[in-house]
């Protein structure tokens, strides 16, 4: 593979397990560049969007995979294509609007090169020149100058794409456990976008992914959740991995918390804080189980969140080693009744840039980046809670999910494991 090769063949993880994560992986420019190549543009399925975002032929929506811009487009045959938003001629960005309809042709605004919705080059102005002069050489092969076309798979209305020919089919990549929980929310019901939120968070992209694999913080940092019993470390819970440990799902059940007075020594600032308007924290049961919070992290770039009745994908877009964008797509179902539509809007107060819960997260991620960026060479995060490995379990006081992430990360980055 081209591009920077930091530490290829040499492990930057000090131990054979992943209980230590060197802070370098969050701030080193060469490692970041290698992550883009090996992970985002490598053999992984990246989130592109929901297919209900492009309902009609020619509809497109602009998005990112890693730092590359892509277009998700509804084709004539009803299928979806994903192409890079970059003209094959001189590299100009094809589409500037976030979304729209391209008609039957994608045309570059710069020199009007035209492509099919699949990315095949169909015409260029003055192809034969003018009065026998100029123009393209006779052997110019238009079939070799199409847009970069990605492999696409849609799973119950969710569109993923990959740059790599070798990426295994998505059902194989996710594995049985992940598919089971993915289809809990994406169960074939027609989806409806409720709205978007986007925010820049000044931390490395991996910290965002790790945060959703870190139940320990969720039951400590988020006083709002603890106060209203929406999430606590003493609730009935379960978490699972895929075989390669990069994907996880974590579920908890509200109302199962312990009656013991002490809550692990957590300092709750205002234990008597209560809501005067309780509508906000009164969810309606909508799936056929007692799970009230399910968080699925799909390596490398998307989190599927079902917290009470707020359903959302959180799409991670890396922006250099020290920053990322988080794009939330809040969704519901086409057949939601009006009460459910109101609930989803109201409960969105928990999430997003001002969310009662996720506000803390964005802040904590920035605290992390600010802290670790100033750490001396060789310093590392310590991840020893609940053992050294990454096995499925049912106790939330654990760092197993983050350790799992780094097993997959170390593997895909090609860092050779240190000898025991």
């Amino acid at each position: 593979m081209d591009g920077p090769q930091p530490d290829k063949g040499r492990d930057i993880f000090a131990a054979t397990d992943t209980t230590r994560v060197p802070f370098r992986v969050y701030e080193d420019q060469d490692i970041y560049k290698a992550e883009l190549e090996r992970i985002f543009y490598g053999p992984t399925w990246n989130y592109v969007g929901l297919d209900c975002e492009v309902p009609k032929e020619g509809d497109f929506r602009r998005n990112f995979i890693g730092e590359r811009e892509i277009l998700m487009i509804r084709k004539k045959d009803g299928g979806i294509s994903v192409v890079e938003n970059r003209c094959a001629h001189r590299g100009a960005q094809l589409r500037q609007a976030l979304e729209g309809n391209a008609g039957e042709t994608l045309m570059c605004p710069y020199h009007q090169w035209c492509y099919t919705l699949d990315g095949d080059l169909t015409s260029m102005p003055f192809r034969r020149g003018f009065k026998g002069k100029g123009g393209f050489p006779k052997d110019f092969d238009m079939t070799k100058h199409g847009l970069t076309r990605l492999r696409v798979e849609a799973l119950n209305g969710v569109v993923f794409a990959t740059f790599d020919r070798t990426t295994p089919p998505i059902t194989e990549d996710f594995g049985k456990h992940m598919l089971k929980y993915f289809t809990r929310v994406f169960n074939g019901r027609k989806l409806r976008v409720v709205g978007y939120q986007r925010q820049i968070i000044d931390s490395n992209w991996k910290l965002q992914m790790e945060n959703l694999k870190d139940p320990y913080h969720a039951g400590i940092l988020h006083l709002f959740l603890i106060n209203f019993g929406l999430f606590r470390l003493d609730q009935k819970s379960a978490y699972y991995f895929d075989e390669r440990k990069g994907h996880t799902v974590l579920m908890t059940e509200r109302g199962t918390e312990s009656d013991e007075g002490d809550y692990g020594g957590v300092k709750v600032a205002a234990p008597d804080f209560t809501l005067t308007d309780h509508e906000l924290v009164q969810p309606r049961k909508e799936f056929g189980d007692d799970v009230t919070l399910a968080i699925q992290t799909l390596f490398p770039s998307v989190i599927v969140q079902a917290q009470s009745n707020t359903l959302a994908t959180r799409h991670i877009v890396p922006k250099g080693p020290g920053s990322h964008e988080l794009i939330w797509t809040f969704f519901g179902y086409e057949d939601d009744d009006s009460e459910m539509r109101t609930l989803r809007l109201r409960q969105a107060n928990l999430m997003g840039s001002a969310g009662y819960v996720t506000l803390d997260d964005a802040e904590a991620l920035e605290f992390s980046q600010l802290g670790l960026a100033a750490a001396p060479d060789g310093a590392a995060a310590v991840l020893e809670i609940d053992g050294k490995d990454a096995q499925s379990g049912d106790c939330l006081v654990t760092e197993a999910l983050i350790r799992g992430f780094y097993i997959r990360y170390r593997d895909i980055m090609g860092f050779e494991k240190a000898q025991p």
Partner: protein
Amino acid sequence: MDQIDTPLDADTHLIRHRVEQLQLDYVHAIDDGAIDSWPGFFTERCLYAIIARDNLERGQELGVMRFESRAMLVDRATATQHAAVFAPRTLCHVLSGTSIEAVDENGIRARTNVAIYQTTADGDTLLLVAATYRDLVVEADGALLFKEKRVIYDTLRLPDSVVNPL
């Protein structure tokens, strides 16, 4: 339900002056960090919403905040001060003039542009949002209150979290 208990003055200049004073009092309270006084600018049943223009143009009402009563605003003010973790910051609202778009039995429809700057403890200032207030203002007991305040922001990709009300 709050009632409009006196007919509003037909003099648009006076109305504009009073609404602009309300806006100034409102933003100064937030900029001064007096978050507990924030709900008092609203009627008991009200709508306070911070919505991306991008969502609204698609007919989507999803907001960064969306509260439907003064009680929910009180909750937000309390939670921000007692159940949230964030780095200290201050806001500075810069308002445009207000245009009065309609005055009828529902109240006063007003539109005001606002640029909101945020400054961290280290003294770094950034433009948090460029936005427009779309307000419905009513008079109750001689004072003007917001019955609706929609903060429609252009800054789709927010550069930071939204901690305090805008």
